[in-house]
């Protein structure tokens, strides 16, 4: 059952990811990316991360992608022109990517223990309670630094999007 669920959501994620790369229109790419993020949220649930799954749906596929779609609509972005793929990229790029991918999956197969796989409910130490405890004790300083980062980002976005900048 776990394997079937994993395969279904992994297939959704990969298909949407491929669709995101090959689509010519930015709005189609953005909607495919929403599909990838929703599938990943389901996978986080399978891995026992309820809080992260909810945050993924709310922050990523909610807030960030709405921002993307908003900008695409605002700029009225149309279909892009065809990419220029040079011959060495065409004949070396794809094989090299396959070789890289093969080596990576081989290393991953060898490095990870084959005995304990992922079962749903096999790890209960990452609910909102544990994350909150860890976030406000061990990771308190990074948390506060992040708030400053967000403040700077807000100021930067306002300054950049002003009317009189040139």
């Amino acid at each position, binding site marked *: 059952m776990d394997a079937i669920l*994993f395969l279904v959501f992994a297939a959704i994620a990969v298909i949407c*990811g491929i669709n995101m790369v090959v689509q010519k229109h930015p709005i189609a790419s953005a909607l495919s990316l929403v599909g990838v993020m929703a599938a990943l949220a389901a*996978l986080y649930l399978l891995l026992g991360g309820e809080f992260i799954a909810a945050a993924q749906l709310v922050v990523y596929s909610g807030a960030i992608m709405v921002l993307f779609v908003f900008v695409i609509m605002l700029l009225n972005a149309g279909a892009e022109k065809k990419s220029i793929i040079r011959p060495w990229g065409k004949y070396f790029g794809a094989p090299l990517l396959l070789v890289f991918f093969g080596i990576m999956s081989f290393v991953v197969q060898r490095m*990870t223990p084959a005995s304990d796989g992922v079962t749903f409910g096999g790890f209960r*130490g990452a609910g909102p309670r544990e994350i909150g405890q860890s976030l406000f004790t061990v*990771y308190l300083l*990074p948390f506060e630094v992040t708030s400053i980062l967000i403040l700077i980002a807000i100021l930067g976005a306002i300054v950049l999007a002003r009317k009189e900048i040139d």
Partner: protein
Amino acid sequence: MPPLPTSVPIAWYLTLSAILFSLGVLGFILRRNIITVFMSIELMLNAVNLTFITFSYMLKRVDGHIFSFFVMVVAAAEAAVGLAIILTVFKNRQTLEIDEVSSLKN
């Protein structure tokens, strides 16, 4: 077809993450629309998040979840600033093609 395992191997999750990261790199290199390039970066960040959560499961620790939480926050800040930059570029040049924004090249 081999029978499906009762528990999903860790390697499957990591391989899925590698596939998504490679797709992100591919989009980053191949696409010419600046917004799509930016979305490819988001795809790569998502793939890394999946790796964090998987290792967190493997080690039975909560730290990976905290890290992916921080990655999400940084991605949100990055999206806000990056989209503001894209808006400014479009306002000044009326284009979204990355190849035409090359003032620093010569």
